[in-house]
């Protein structure tokens, strides 16, 4: 997972059916100095995050598919094979980061 800042959200009406009902957030990864830099990317939300929050993003498609499949009640090994075209998800809200 990577540390990110939520800088916005996106509304799409015409979209792949698997995205219906999903909140799509705009995230920017933090660098080692905890500044938001680098490529902007989109992720679906699972923790009710809002603009300005600092979050953890999972960017591995297989993990995201596993989470979505489990939400639908599938067993883990079947959940991973679900054809869900989503590869980034906000999985946690960050309270505190301690770095030496």
């Amino acid at each position, binding site marked *: 997972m990577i540390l990110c800042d939520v*800088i*916005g959200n996106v509304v799409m009406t015409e979209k792949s059916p698997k995205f219906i009902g999903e909140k799509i957030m705009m995230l920017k990864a933090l660098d080692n100095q905890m500044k938001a830099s680098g*490529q902007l990317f989109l992720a679906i939300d699972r923790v009710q995050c809002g603009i300005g929050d600092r979050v953890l993003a999972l960017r591995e498609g297989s993990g995201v598919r596993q989470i979505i499949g489990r939400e639908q009640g599938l067993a883990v090994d079947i959940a991973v094979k679900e054809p869900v*075209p989503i*590869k980034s998800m906000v999985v946690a809200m960050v309270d505190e980061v301690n770095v030496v």
Partner: protein
Amino acid sequence: MNLAKVVGQVVANQKIEGLVGAKFLLVDYLDEKNKQTGKRVVAVDTVRAGIGDTVSCVSSREAALALEPFFVPIDSAIIGIVDSINVSL
């Protein structure tokens, strides 16, 4: 997934069997200020996007899962047309 702008289309007649019927669009990745970052890819359209649209693109294995039937040999797919963006810079 990334924000991108559709800047053109690609026509290819000679191609592998799995790509027959795919609509190829040229997209430029965008940053949060709506400027093109310089990264340009050919993505397969699944939502009837047109030139000039701002879209959402997914890459690698998940792109292959966006089409019906899934698991076509692609690594980039357009999976949504963006209506509005709410951003705090």
